[in-house]
């Protein structure tokens, strides 16, 4: 009995020591992690989002950005003006458990799978930032994750990679034209906030305004220019919205893999799909949104990557790990990233 108690005590001490060790180890430079000020959950995530129809939305202007997901016929939109205040929405899209993570300082919206290790969790805002970027934490283990690095950087799940789901980002004007029957997140978040007011002044357009240090600083493009970054192992490539002054489809390769990148500066969207060689000579076609391209064989591709008409109808193109954000954040997180 005495030995058993001794063993139990020793195990407990070891467990506590291991837990402490997990919190002291970081996969990103610890001294470059910044405390933003509001504290953990000081910026409240929305854990029970409500949705309204497009017709009921009265708080967005046509130029506002919205990010959304299309999955199994369910289309949900999450407006930037709400995400600016909450940064994380824990939600479900059909059978997907998602955490829509959004960092207003890097302008990055990325949907993560909330099923981690086979268990459902919710994510919250840790109040910490790395390279100006959101560090979400999973509430099940209190592990800290790097949004743009797409991995757990501190805590029990350290080293684990985040599984991400493809998103679409565009103006509200484009969204309501493309998805008139979609669901849009409502301002009834459970918190009283002025969603008509962008909370960071001129930050999103001022290329000289940064709230925290950037390391490294890459000035090849203006810091706040919106780009789509395709991450393919150690080969990454950025596509600026300015590449799409004229809406078009680009066939390109990243790290030896082929992709189709389609964008429109006016509608402020860029999407990327893996090019499996099935679509032949895709050209941009915005005549019948959300169809954005038609190939030489009459296959019509919509913005979610689904071929909705033509010989390949019903086929869904795979999406790479890709997301849109301010240029400076790609320069800081993926040093030397290639620019298209």
């Amino acid at each position, binding site marked *: 009995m005495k030995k058993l108690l001794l063993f139990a005590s020793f195990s407990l001490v070891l467990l506590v020591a291991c837990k402490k060790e997990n*919190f002291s180890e970081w996969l990103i430079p610890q001294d470059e992690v910044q*405390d933003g*000020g509001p504290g953990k*959950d000081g910026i409240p995530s929305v854990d029970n989002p409500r949705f309204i129809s497009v017709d009921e939305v009265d708080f967005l202007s046509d130029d506002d950005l919205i990010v959304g997901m299309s999955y199994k016929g369910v289309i949900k939109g999450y407006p930037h003006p709400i995400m600016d205040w909450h940064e994380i929405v824990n939600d479900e899209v059909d059978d997907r458990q998602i955490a829509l993570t959004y960092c207003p300082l890097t302008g990055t919206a990325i949907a993560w799978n909330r099923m981690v290790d086979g268990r459902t969790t919710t994510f919250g805002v840790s109040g910490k930032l790395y390279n100006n970027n959101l560090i979400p934490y999973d509430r099940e283990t209190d592990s800290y994750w790097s949004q743009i690095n797409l991995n757990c950087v501190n805590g029990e799940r350290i080293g684990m990679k985040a599984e991400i789901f493809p998103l679409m980002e565009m103006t509200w004007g484009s969204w309501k034209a493309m998805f008139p029957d979609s669901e849009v997140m409502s301002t009834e978040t459970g918190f*009283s906030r002025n969603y008509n007011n962008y909370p960071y002044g001129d930050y999103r357009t001022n290329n000289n305004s940064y709230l925290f240090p950037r390391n490294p600083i890459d000035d090849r493009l203006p810091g706040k220019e919106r780009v789509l970054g395709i991450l393919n192992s150690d080969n990454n490539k950025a596509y600026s919205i300015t590449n799409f002054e004229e809406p078009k489809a680009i066939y390109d390769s990243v790290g030896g893999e082929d992709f189709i990148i389609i964008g429109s500066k006016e509608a402020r969207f860029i999407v990327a799909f893996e090019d499996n060689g099935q679509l032949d000579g895709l050209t941009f076609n915005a005549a019948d949104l959300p169809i954005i391209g038609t190939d030489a064989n009459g296959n019509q591709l919509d913005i979610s990557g689904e071929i909705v008409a033509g010989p390949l109808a019903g086929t869904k193109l795979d999406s790479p790990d890709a997301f849109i954000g301010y240029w400076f954040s790609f320069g800081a997180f993926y040093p030397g990233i290639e620019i298209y």
Partner: protein
Amino acid sequence: MLLFFGLGIFELGAQTCCSAGAPITSSFDISGSEIKGFAFRFDYEYNSVNLLIDNNKKLVNDPRTRNGQSFVFKTDFSLNKNWAFSAFLPVVIQNRTTFSEEESATGLGDLTLLGQYTTYLKNNIELKWAGGIKLPTGHQYLQDNRGIVLSPDMQSGTGTLDFIGRMAFVKRHFLIQNLSNQTSISYRYNATNNHFGDQEKIAGRIFKFGNETQLTSAFSYLFVAKKWFIIPELGIQIRHTSPNQEQNADAPNSGGFWLRLPLGVQLKPNDRFSIRLFSEVPIFQNLEGLQITTNYKLGLSFGIKL
């Protein structure tokens, strides 16, 4: 005796930002001790920062609660009838609580040194000028339990050499016997910390608290009861701070305009000892963006003159 009454009137030098800042609210006023005499004071202040304001609109459902406490040790020295000097040093406790975290940081604050010159002193009127510096003696690298340096407003010091200027006008027996008025204006220039939280590492965070202007006008009245002097105080305070700066650019959601009501009471068993209970409540504020700000302050002060 009457020479000194009313000098406890408010002159709060709070350094606040969106989340409170180092609450060094010790009086800038220098006690009127005897010539070539010392005066000592100990102040405790509790600053509750739980008012969520979006510009001038009050919001609800803030997941945070925030408070700061300070213990200030102050020494004044009067060289002659014109010159007086003061030094004060705070110990600061900052608390930040959400449903998932309780963060507390305690540390030595910044040492402030002031010199005061009285240019006019007759007919129950005083005109005083003061200037001084705040030295970076406080902590700027207090960390959380994961080893991350806490934000500037959670630190007990700013890591900068700051400058303070002040002018005060005092009128005793104002309109009626035993009523005094003190009106003062103060300005604090806060320097930029180019190595916030550095502690031999290269974090590279550049931070500056916004400069602060404060105008206070307060009245006090002297009662005598059972040989005790009782001095109630009531005033009005206007405060303006420019936005903080992060990486040399204005930080959103910081700075603004505040209108506050300071009030208190001083008890003096004689001319050497004083006890003062004071408070401050907001009347109106128009802030830049969304900020949590003070919903009330409470303080207690003990003074002795030698």
